[in-house]
């Protein structure tokens, strides 16, 4: 394996570089996936039938908490990658753990939100609006849930093997995924929640 020491560890082999490029292409496809969900949401948002409209079920406090949790977690995973690049393994793992805890906090609030919606009579079957609302939020929430498992596995590998060109590459790709989830949330926060309550 040819290791290029002029590059950060996560890019140091050809395989690593291609893994990162490949993941960016995957994220391009993810943008399109969420694009179709947003398109459906904007088309169906006023089709509320006998069910509630967005402004009746959305609550600002949990939504702000979710936003702050996810925004901060995106910052801490960025710090984890920075710690990785300066070779601080302990700090890196700490930032990784903080990131996943914040992710859990986000998910907790989102699950609470879902319970409240159903409690107020907005289930996935109530109207076209609630169906696409649950589908869009659920797709994002499922990504976060998957990320929690993925991140935990990477932490165990970091503890076991330390920072090397393989774990650095995996951690960096995970950070891309996590930042991407934050980007998607920004759009959900703006165009589903804030627009719905405007």
């Amino acid at each position, binding site marked *: 394996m040819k290791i290029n020491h002029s590059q950060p560890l996560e890019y140091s082999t050809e395989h690593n570089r291609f893994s990162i490029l490949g993941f960016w292409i995957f994220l*391009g496809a993810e*943008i399109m996936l969420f694009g*179709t969900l947003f*398109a459906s949401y904007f088309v169906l948002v006023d089709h509320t039938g006998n069910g509630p409209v967005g402004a009746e079920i959305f609550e600002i406090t949990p939504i702000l908490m979710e936003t702050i949790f996810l*925004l901060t977690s*995106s*910052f801490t995973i960025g710090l984890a990658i920075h710690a990785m690049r300066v070779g601080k393994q302990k700090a890196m793992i700490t930032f990784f753990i903080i990131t996943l805890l914040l992710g859990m906090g986000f998910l907790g609030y989102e699950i609470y939100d879902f319970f409240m919606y159903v409690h107020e009579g907005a289930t996935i079957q109530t109207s076209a609006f609630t169906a696409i609302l649950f589908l869009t939020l659920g797709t994002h929430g499922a990504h976060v849930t998957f990320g929690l498992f993925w991140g935990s596995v990477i932490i165990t590998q970091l503890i076991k093997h330390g920072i090397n060109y393989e774990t650095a590459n995996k951690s960096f790709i995970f950070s891309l995924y996590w*930042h991407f989830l934050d*980007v998607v949330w920004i759009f959900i*926060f703006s165009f589903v929640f804030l627009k719905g309550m405007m």
Partner: protein
Amino acid sequence: MKELFPRKQVMGFVFSLILTAVAVTVYFFDMSFEVGSTILLVTAFVQAAVQLVVFMHAGETGDKKAIYTSTFYGLIIALVTVFGSLLTLVWAYY
């Protein structure tokens, strides 16, 4: 401790918080649909760009071109899908 908090990323985080605060004003203040939508569009896309450049290090290797090409390709398809659907299925009926 200080070396663990690079200035660029801390500034990026503070900037995202400010953009979030600006976006939230559409909820707390009464404003027209046009003004509110414009604020949300600007804050959301600027914040996405901050993530892309500051946190995701999109432009730091020789693959910069390929990374931006595939990202913008995805973005363009997504925007065409969203605005095409709005145009044919919502706005056409007003």
